[in-house]
């Protein structure tokens, strides 16, 4: 992290991801005179408005014009600014996908995107406002880095790290408050390096975003049932931490991915790609929204409905533990 790139937020464990990034961005504004914040009529909803209140001259509200939001961001970056753009994930990743890909990623511009209301975190709003496709879309763009922070504290860390990370970065957060999984910001957050939240030897849960908390709760219950569960917070989907995945395959032989995203194309697919390429077999299951437009409802109800909350994870672990794994201690003979 560059000198001066630090942040502190009072009551960080009581704020939403969006509230924290709004505050952190505002703090970074003091030491980064070229930081400019942008949105498209979602200053209050996304919390990027906090930056605008402090630095009105470095804040651009485009009105409801998401395509140009990212085109103008590209132009600002080429003029020497460091734009941070915030809107709902569904608009950033789908409506403006081409501007993000062609104007920003193709030219490898230093534009940071903070996409809020991702997944089904705005469950009541229906599928026009859900976004269970953005990880798949964004990780397929060359030059793009994709980060899905687990809680408010990690969101603060991700924003700071993104500022110091050249090129486009997509940070995906939710809408409301999720119980924090981190108690301190000083756990060595690094883009591309997953965090082992809890070690274990029987099964590994690889997860990101709000699902990290669900996985931790599931793991605690499973421990009482005599299972040793490893929980990995894969906060960076791209570039993915291949080593930690392969280590989990070798050491636990059972992997479940958990994400608030379509089970096609997101974290589960990214982890699956690494496993298949490693040539090492394991029992594998992906939890998330199962290739459907999600029903309407409160997020916690939907996580339960699609069985990727703690209860759903416990059920999936139980099923996966029943699956027989061929004993093979000699991994060296495999490629």
């Amino acid at each position, binding site marked *: 992290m560059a000198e001066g790139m630090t942040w502190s937020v009072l009551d960080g464990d009581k704020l939403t991801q969006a509230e924290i990034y709004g505050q952190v961005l505002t703090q970074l504004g003091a030491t980064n005179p070229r930081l*400019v914040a942008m949105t498209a009529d979602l200053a209050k909803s996304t919390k990027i408005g906090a930056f605008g209140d402090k630095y009105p*001259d*470095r804040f*651009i509200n*485009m*009105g409801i*014009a998401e*395509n*140009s939001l*990212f*085109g*103008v*961001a*590209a*132009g*600002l*970056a*080429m*003029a*020497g*600014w460091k734009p941070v753009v915030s809107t709902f994930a569904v608009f950033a990743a789908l409506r403006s996908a*081409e*501007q993000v890909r*062609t*104007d920003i990623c*193709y*030219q*490898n511009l230093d534009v940071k995107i903070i996409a809020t209301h991702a997944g089904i975190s705005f469950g009541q709003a229906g599928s026009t406002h859900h976004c269970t496709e953005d990880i798949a879309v964004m990780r397929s763009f060359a030059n793009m880095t994709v980060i899905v922070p687990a809680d408010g504290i990690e969101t603060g860390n991700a924003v700071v790290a993104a500022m110091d990370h050249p090129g486009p970065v997509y940070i995906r957060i939710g809408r409301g408050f999720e119980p924090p999984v981190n108690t301190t910001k000083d756990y060595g957050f690094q883009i591309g390096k997953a965090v082992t939240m809890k070690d274990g030897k029987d099964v590994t849960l690889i997860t990101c975003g709000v699902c990290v908390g669900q996985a931790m709760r599931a793991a605690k219950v499973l421990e009482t049932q005599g299972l040793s569960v490893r929980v990995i917070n894969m906060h960076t989907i791209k570039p993915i931490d291949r080593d930690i995945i392969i280590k989990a395959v070798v050491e636990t032989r059972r992997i479940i991915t958990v994400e608030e995203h379509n089970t096609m194309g997101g974290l589960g697919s990214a982890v699956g790609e690494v496993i298949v390429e490693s040539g090492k077999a394991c029992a594998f299951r992906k939890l998330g929204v199962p290739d459907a437009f999600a029903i309407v409802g409160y997020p916690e109800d939907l996580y339960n409905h699609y069985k990727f909350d703690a209860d759903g994870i416990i059920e999936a672990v139980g099923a996966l533990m029943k699956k027989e794994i061929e004993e093979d201690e000699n991994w060296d003979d495999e490629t």
Partner: protein
Amino acid sequence: MPLTAEEIKTMQQKAKDIRKSIVDITFTAGGGHIGGSLSQTDILVALYYRYMNIDPKNPRKEDRDRMILSKGHGGLGWAAVLGEKGYFDKALLKNFNKTGSPFGMHLDSLKVPGCDASTGSLGHGLAIAVGMAIGAKKLKQSWRTYCVMGDGECCEGSVWEAAIIGAFHKLDNLTAFVDRNRLMIDGPTEDITQLDSMDDKFKAFGWEVLHVDGHDFTALGGAIEKAMAIKDKPTVIICDTVKGKCVDFMENEYKWHYGGLDSDMRDKAYTCIDTYYDKVGG
């Protein structure tokens, strides 16, 4: 200051050389967007040979004026201008479209010196230009942004998003052009949709609108200078142009949006260009 007769003569000469270069690249590349490259040529020549603050030997100099060719398929014609200006060795244009070449049909800002933005997907350029112009104003820098659009791309909603925000930010450091050749891939613009009256459309969006013959350097120069003097709003110069300008068998033929040339057609095109400039001088 109005262009002198001498300046206009030089521009005609450059436009002639560049049009021949466009024909030549189309021939060697095995095809290209020749119609629109020929219609935009005089706009680019006026800017690159008289008005833009640029240094081809230092293509990234900080205070340079920026060019966004929003009609990115005019990349072939833009490359011909950049080559003629000395941004790179013109001989490199022999590789246009070839595997691994820095030059594809739509220029890549990371590969082509003088190309300030990668374009090609229509309707993107004006927003990028607006971002640059806002950026320059906020940095209190005096360089200008020029954006050349096609008329067909004005069907794209994103053009009008950018037009709204450009007027809101009072971008008097931005001059846009519409290469109004009245043809798109599938035919005449007004047979397919309704782009007239473009002047009224931009005026309604808060832009200063100037309308000129896009092949008349005196008119182009006058409009560009007028745009520089206008305060508190961006200007669009709608340029009436002829697709395929100077090559009689291409002029106003929508089928020449994209095409290839054999050596006979190339030679005929050269002759057309020579004949045209024998008449107008240059």
